[in-house]
């Protein structure tokens, strides 16, 4: 929930920044300072729950919702890191009047991540066969 909230805030700030440097920084730092620790917490919590419920035991069946959760978490991390790197370079180049394309990339990736998280929550709550 913290991760989704941080991603929502970051995506909204980057979308509505309208070139405002301070606001672009706010969007990026929200992703880095709130989103990244939230991701680590989510991943540790998810692994702990899976281990406690015996979902990772040898021979245990892998339900679709668990597979969806892992795919979104792991592929999501890749997108998350790319968004952070692109946003980081974008923020550094803002002083030279550049970096807007990189920040737009970070914005698009955060929106994609947000959609993926909503899908994962739906799958993990509804547990489709």
């Amino acid at each position, binding site marked *: 929930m913290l991760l989704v*909230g941080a991603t929502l*805030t970051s995506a909204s*700030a980057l979308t509505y920044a309208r070139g405002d440097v301070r606001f672009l920084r706010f969007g990026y730092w929200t992703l880095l300072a*709130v989103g990244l620790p939230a991701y680590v917490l989510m991943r540790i919590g998810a692994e702990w729950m899976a281990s406690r419920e015996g979902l990772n035991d040898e021979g245990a069946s892998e339900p679709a919702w668990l597979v969806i959760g892992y795919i979104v978490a792991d592929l999501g991390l890749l997108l998350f890191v790319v968004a952070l790197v692109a946003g980081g370079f974008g923020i550094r180049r803002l002083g030279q009047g550049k970096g807007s394309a990189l920040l737009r990339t970070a914005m698009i990736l955060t929106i994609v991540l947000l959609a993926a998280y*909503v899908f994962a929550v739906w799958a993990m709550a509804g547990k489709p066969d």
Partner: protein
Amino acid sequence: MVLDDWILAFHVLSAFAMVSALVLFWILVLAVRDVDTVDQTLAYGRVMRVGTPVVMAGVVGTILFGVWLAVALDRYRLWDGWIVAALLLWALGTWAGMRADAEYRRPVVRAEELRAAAHQEGQPGELRALNRSPAGFRMHTISSVAVILVLVDMIWKPGA
């Protein structure tokens, strides 16, 4: 997935929407504490406007789908202690959240007035004081604590 599974999924998605919006509002509450300009206040106000429909969807969805599940599933009753506690906490959280929203809307309205009057800045410290809003902070804290207690209640279902 049968209908009840879909309802449960929407109930959980609504809870995610509510808490995600609360997180968004917390980030904004902390970020605007030193903001004293019209432009910055309006910029943060635009992000606040994203959070408002999200939190409303969460508030309406959690109660609607939650009550549906309590009525539809044989193992739960609407008058079970943990469900009554959740309903009361939900009401407290919603009331406090609405009060917080009204408080944090004031600096945005004032900034819009200043912009309409072609003043880029109000009295020094005026917008900062409105953005800091101790009453808004208090209400947002109450709302967040109530929502966290609802989550704890929903996950552990004491007495169920």
